[in-house]
């Protein structure tokens, strides 16, 4: 039998200033590592780029199907989908670095130091946001080079990036949680590759929903990844449907907040008893 002991100070809150400065330094550490290995970021964009160009070329005539209500090229149609896909696959690796830090003892080193727990998690979220932004912009540029045009302009690209960050945070937090709980790289790869393709095909990433069977349309409407694709496509168009964009952004924001909360809770329970 185990005895339960109350530890009053466990719930003590770290001063906000400390959380901020620690977030700053710990994020700096992560971004430094990122800058030192820029090829890691570039490498992770290769797969989305292949989708963009090969899929774009292979199915370029899809756009001519009667009823395909899209003004630009199929490549341009694909850009928001590929951005969403990258936001997912890129952040899938978050849990891997979490496992690595646990195995190396780095995480424990921070835990025995008076480091703000919240800051440790903040740093991973900020890192995810930064790398997702860079990758999204690379895809946007690649698309442009391939002939895609973005009537939505800079505002559209900023909104597309924000939506991608939200999806990235959702996926990164879940991956972190999986890493902390299962401590297995294989599990992370398994879980996330399993979900990725179905989520992609149950969205408007490749084709507009009106061409889908009814059941697929129903799922797609509830698929957060599809929300992001729809946000992206809308904001990049000449006449964004702002109320719909706002509603879907709200949905993604709520989901991201929930996932971060779950991930932080998992982390706290890890930190309380290593």
């Amino acid at each position, binding site marked *: *039998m185990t005895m339960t002991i109350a530890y009053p100070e466990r719930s003590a809150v*770290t001063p906000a200033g400390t959380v901020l400065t620690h977030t700053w330094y710990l994020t700096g550490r992560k971004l430094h590592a990122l800058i030192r290995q820029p090829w890691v970021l570039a490498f992770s964009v290769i797969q989305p780029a292949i989708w963009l160009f090969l899929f774009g070329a292979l199915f370029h005539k899809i756009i001519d199907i009667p009823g395909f209500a899209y003004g630009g090229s199929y490549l341009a149609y694909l850009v928001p989908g590929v951005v969403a896909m990258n936001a997912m696959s890129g952040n899938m690796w978050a849990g891997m670095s979490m496992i690595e830090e646990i195995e190396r*003892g780095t995480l424990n080193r921070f835990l*025995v130091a*008076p480091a703000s727990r919240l800051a440790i998690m903040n740093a991973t979220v900020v890192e995810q946001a930064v790398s997702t932004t860079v990758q999204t912009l690379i895809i946007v540029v690649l698309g442009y080079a391939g002939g895609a045009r973005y009537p939505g302009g800079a505002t559209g690209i900023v909104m597309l990036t924000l939506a991608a960050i939200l999806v990235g945070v959702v996926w990164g937090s879940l991956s972190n949680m999986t890493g902390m709980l299962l401590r297995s790289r294989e599990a992370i790869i398994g879980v996330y590759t399993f979900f990725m393709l179905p989520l992609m095909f149950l969205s408007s990433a490749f084709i507009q929903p009106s061409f889908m069977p009814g059941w697929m349309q129903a799922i797609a409407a509830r698929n957060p990844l599809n929300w992001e694709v729809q946000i992206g496509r809308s904001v990049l168009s000449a006449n964004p449907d702002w109320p719909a964009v706002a509603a879907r952004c709200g949905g993604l924001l709520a989901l991201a907040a929930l996932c971060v909360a779950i991930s932080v809770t998992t982390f706290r329970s890890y930190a309380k008893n290593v």
Partner: protein
Amino acid sequence: MHSIEARGLAKSYPAPGKSQSKSTGNGKARVTALDGLDLTVPSGTIFALLGPNGAGKTTTVNILTTLARPDGGTARVNGVDVLAQPARARKVIGVVAQRSGADPTATGRENLILQGHLYGLDTRTAKNRAAELLEHFRLTDAARRLVRTYSGGMQRRLDVALGLMHRPKVLFLDEPTTGLDPESRTAMWQEITRLAAEDRMTVLLTTHYLEEADRLANRLAIVDHGRVVAEGEPDQLKQELKGDVIQVELPANADERHVTDALNAVPAVRDVLVAGRNVSARSDDGAAAVPAVLAALAIAGTPAASVTVARPSLDEVYLRYTGRRYSQAGEEPPATRRPQLTEVSG
């Protein structure tokens, strides 16, 4: 004044093997890591926790450094109750864990400065302190190199430097020299001894090297199966085992009980222990007792293959308190080892 006071620390983990999931966490199939461990470490000493893998050393360190919570017991470090006020405790302790913990994708200097920032040092102080420690640990030339490129010895020195950034009052060193070559190990010992003397730190060191405990520690505790079985100064512990040790190697297939009975009948020796082919016994005058021992073995029909007489070593102390020879204990199946990635030995 005591830097560390732990009373009755108890801790068990779900048994490894079946699964790491919660299914075993229901009070059954648990492995006891600590079984009422008591520890008192006087301030300013280098104190060694000595024991084989799985004895409970790392679990003790994890509890004292606020990483793990015990199922029962109390612990104070530098006067702070680590269970009630872990955040306060963290400020006064330095920890060098078994696993490196240094970020391989950053330079040695960056690692140290970040560590300083986490302990609340301002950038300037952190930079100065980092330079000082890099110099001290002969890492100045490698300061701006990524830690990934460091040798094992360099990484370990950096680990210790990380633990010292904020000038802790109590330093925990968990297996500081495991995996180091003999030369690096000796250098590390000198470093630790010097540091402790200069900064008047209390050092709690865990080791499964007898020699390390003997060379470094002012005091030591032998930990076995989650409890402290002996405690004192190394020399004092050895002296308590009065007299010399006679070690005899038997021929193969000797009958243990037969041999024990034969030797117990020799008046000049005591504490007879037979473990396989190795027999040890104690005597006030080892050299004088050897003929009688050899004669008794010859009569018993198991003549000795070899015999040595030695002054008591820590190995003998260990044998006395645990009933096992140290080298054998280390080879036991690591039954109490945790199924966690964060731990190599207990």
